[in-house]
């Protein structure tokens, strides 16, 4: 599938109407960390009722501070959970999956899905690749089974794919520590995208890189995505990356989404008080006034505040916010906000 081009020549941004079912539809997903030590149970509600969808051929961004639950959300969506993380409710439905939710699918079904339909770019750290295995071995270990090709055909495919990411085939014979940070990150991207999956999930793919290399890698991610027409779910706390790359953006706070809009609209006209402060905190050239900081810190997800999780820090907090949790409400086409003060009674 190729990107549709609108009359003004610009790649079409997703509109209100979605002709096809979205690639990924997450509905009221709740994923908790449940631990038990010496008979005392503890529950961390890292993802608590999140709904969104990722459409065809779009880059969907997910922003939030540390401990807002964005990495947990990714793990739940990728069905890459390990105890103590559990999905306790809601669904994550993938278009190319028979089962109603990812978490009801059998492991055989998931195995069919992974790499070919759904892939995961790991955080760009030193340990994304096995330090004692050559890059070629990583491709053989992780990707060969999904590509269903071996020997020379597999090798040719890998080399062709690497060259798309401007990597020489000599990296195949290198150990990860012999590559630069940018090369290593491009290798992990190549590893995750070699089967041209429909949906790629990326967890902070450029965090470990400096801005110059970061821009390079982001450009390559975008080129690759536009070429293959796949969808990308991108998680990072770096709003600059979101502004540069994503089509739509959602902001997460305390395990829930607070606002979702096309990226430009969100940066230009944020509605939720948290999103407003977040966007206002970005430095601008020529600005001299110091930034005002919100009092307090992100909520403890083991004992989140009742009602809206932002209310203890919110300048607009009302009595109702302490009792009820606001739901995501449409305030404009494609623009949803979870706030009583902004979206009215809802």
């Amino acid at each position: 599938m190729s990107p549709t081009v609108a009359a003004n020549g610009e790649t079409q941004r997703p509109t209100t109407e979605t002709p096809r079912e979205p690639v990924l539809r997450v509905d009221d997903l709740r994923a908790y960390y449940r631990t038990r030590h010496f008979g005392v149970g503890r529950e961390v509600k890292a993802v608590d009722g999140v709904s969104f969808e990722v459409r065809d051929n779009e880059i969907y961004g997910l922003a939030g501070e540390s401990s807002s639950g964005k990495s947990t959300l990714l793990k739940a969506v990728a069905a890459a959970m390990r105890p103590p993380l559990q999905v306790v409710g809601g669904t994550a439905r993938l278009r190319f999956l028979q089962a109603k939710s990812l978490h009801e699918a059998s492991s055989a079904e998931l195995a069919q899905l992974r790499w070919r339909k759904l892939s995961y770019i790991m955080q760009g750290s030193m340990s994304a690749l096995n330090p004692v295995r050559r890059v070629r071995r990583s491709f053989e270990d992780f990707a060969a089974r999904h590509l269903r090709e071996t020997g020379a055909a597999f090798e040719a495919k890998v080399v062709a794919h690497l060259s798309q990411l401007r990597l020489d085939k000599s990296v195949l014979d290198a150990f990860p520590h012999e590559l630069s940070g940018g090369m290593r990150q491009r290798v992990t991207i190549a590893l995750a995208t070699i089967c041209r999956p429909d949906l790629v999930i990326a967890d902070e793919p450029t965090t470990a890189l400096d801005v110059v290399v970061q821009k390079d890698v982001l450009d390559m991610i975008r080129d690759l995505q536009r070429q293959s027409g796949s969808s990308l779910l991108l998680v990072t706390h770096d709003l600059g990356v979101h502004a540069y790359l994503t089509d739509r953006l959602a902001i997460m706070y305390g395990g829930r989404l607070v606002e979702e809009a096309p990226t430009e609209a969100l940066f230009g006209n944020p509605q939720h008080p948290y999103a407003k402060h977040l966007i206002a905190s970005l430095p601008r050239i020529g600005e001299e006034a110091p930034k005002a900081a919100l009092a307090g810190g992100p909520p403890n997800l083991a004992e989140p505040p009742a009602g809206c999780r932002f209310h203890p820090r919110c300048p607009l907090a009302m009595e109702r916010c302490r009792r009820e949790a606001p739901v995501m409400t449409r305030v404009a086409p494609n623009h949803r906000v979870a706030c009583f003060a902004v979206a009215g009674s809802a």
Partner: protein
Amino acid sequence: MLATLRDLFLYNPEFRIGAILLGLIAGMAALSLASPYAPLDTFVVAPDLPPSFAHPFGTTSRGQDVFWQLTFAIRNTLTFGIVVAVLSRLLSLAIGLLAGYKGGWVDRVLMAINDTFIAIPLFPILVLFYFVLRDAMSWAALAIIMALLGWAYDARLIRALALSLKTREFTYTGVFSGMTTRELLVREHLPYVMPIVFATTMNNMNWSIGLEVTLSVLGFTDINSPTVGGMIYWANQHTALVAGVWWWIAFPVILVVALFIGLFLLAVSMNEHIDPRSRLRRMGAEGGA
């Protein structure tokens, strides 16, 4: 691999001395194939002759040539150490990697067994085995018993590494790509722990050979298959030191001490080689600080 060995040989005196010692001992073990005498024959030469050209290490009171007898003894002792090391390595790798990766009740059960083996005193148990098995206590039986007793320390060490490997991203990638636990452990985690296993193998051989010599000297093993400890046992039986036949005890002791030192130096140099910082310092690449 060859380049690594060459560098070690050039830059690391411990490795150099250890390799030379072990090379000499291995060469001596290989000479057993050319021995003019069968290992169990007695009174094939004149007894109690001091070292000479005809008999470089002298002869025993049982009419055996000490040198040729030692070639058999060291071959058996060395093979014993290697068999125990290989068998116990297989056990400790399988148990350590699985316990560390799986965690939960698998880890708890395996480590409870593991700690039991660490805590129980091995020597009395081996003596007990001898008294129960008596004639059935062959060389192979002892090797298997020692292997079953000797895996625990390294399994703990390997588990500790596996615990850290389990949280690395490439492990997640492997799980996500659908690798089975066995594939993941063998193809991703095993290569990572191998260098450390090499180093501990030397220590394990030292431990098993030491125990075997101890048991043999006391006569708690199959005294009819020649080992270094068995030779010392027979020398003691014939009161070799009182009778002035010192060479019967001295040469086996010197040989086994050389074997211990060789293995120990190799283990030390391996340890140092695995740590890149000490390797660089050794090669003179690091400045002051």
